């Protein structure tokens, strides 16, 4: 995939590879952001029974995570595309792990909140 040293300008106008790996990854990020957004809407529908107005907090957090992930992943796609299509080597540093780590932490935090809400919900209903 590494071209000659002088032909950098042309490659940035077309995808990095025929398999469209960066594009598919960008779409996977969008699916994930969409899932988070849908989950936030569901939380807004369900949680007010237990939390009252406080249900806005997890819903807003979810919406923020979704929006930030969308923006960050879009910028990340642009950056990856630029790196891959302009560098002489295709063995370049792409992912340092901060983004997956942050996303995993956010998901676990959301899961813990959901667990707490479910326990509360059960107590509210079963007495």
């Amino acid at each position, binding site marked *: 995939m590494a071209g000659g040293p002088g032909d950098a300008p042309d490659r940035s106008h077309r995808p990095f590879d025929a398999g469209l790996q960066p594009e598919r990854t960008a779409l996977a990020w969008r699916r994930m952001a969409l899932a988070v957004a849908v989950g936030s809407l569901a939380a807004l529908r369900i949680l007010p029974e237990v939390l009252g107005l406080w249900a806005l907090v997890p819903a807003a957090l979810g919406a923020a995570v979704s929006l930030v992930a969308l923006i960050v992943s879009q910028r990340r796609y642009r950056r990856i595309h630029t790196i891959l299509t302009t560098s002489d080597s295709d*063995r370049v540093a792409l992912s340092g792990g901060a983004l997956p780590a942050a996303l*995993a932490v956010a998901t676990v935090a959301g899961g813990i909140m959901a667990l707490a809400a479910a326990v509360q919900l059960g107590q509210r209903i079963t007495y």
Partner: protein
Amino acid sequence: MTAHEEGPDTSSTGREAPGGPAPAPAGTDTGTGPRATPAADEPDRSRRRISAWALGGGTEPDPRFTLANERTFLAWIRTSLAMVAGGIAVEAFTLELFTPEVRKTVAVLLLLLGLVTGGGSFFRWLNVERAMRRQAPLPLPLIAPILAAGGALVAAVLIVFVIWRPA
């Protein structure tokens, strides 16, 4: 798994500059290598050291594999989100269907599955990334049997409930 044993390029931290020359052994330190695009690199300077430590040396894998690993991670995250949403939905919307014990058991199981798959997906991503950087065989996914066993457990609880259901 510090993994500095194999590969011809183990002295480098593996984080070469994006525009830099091809496979150059890239100095010995993160701060002294040539930087082709300093503007894009500046915000990364602090996390670069953590990343280099977490990724455990080795050489950069084919970017297509790194991106595929990232997509698999995102698929696990979506699985986790689905489990969490399912757990909440069971807890909230099955009042007439389930007894309180069954409802609570299924909801907590689903939520715990969501927690484990969500948290485990990052370590899965990291282990695969590290293996690829060392040209080592990919590790087996621990979260896959956990997800399978957890799903089977949920199904088993529901089967027992359906059989014993007071009709």
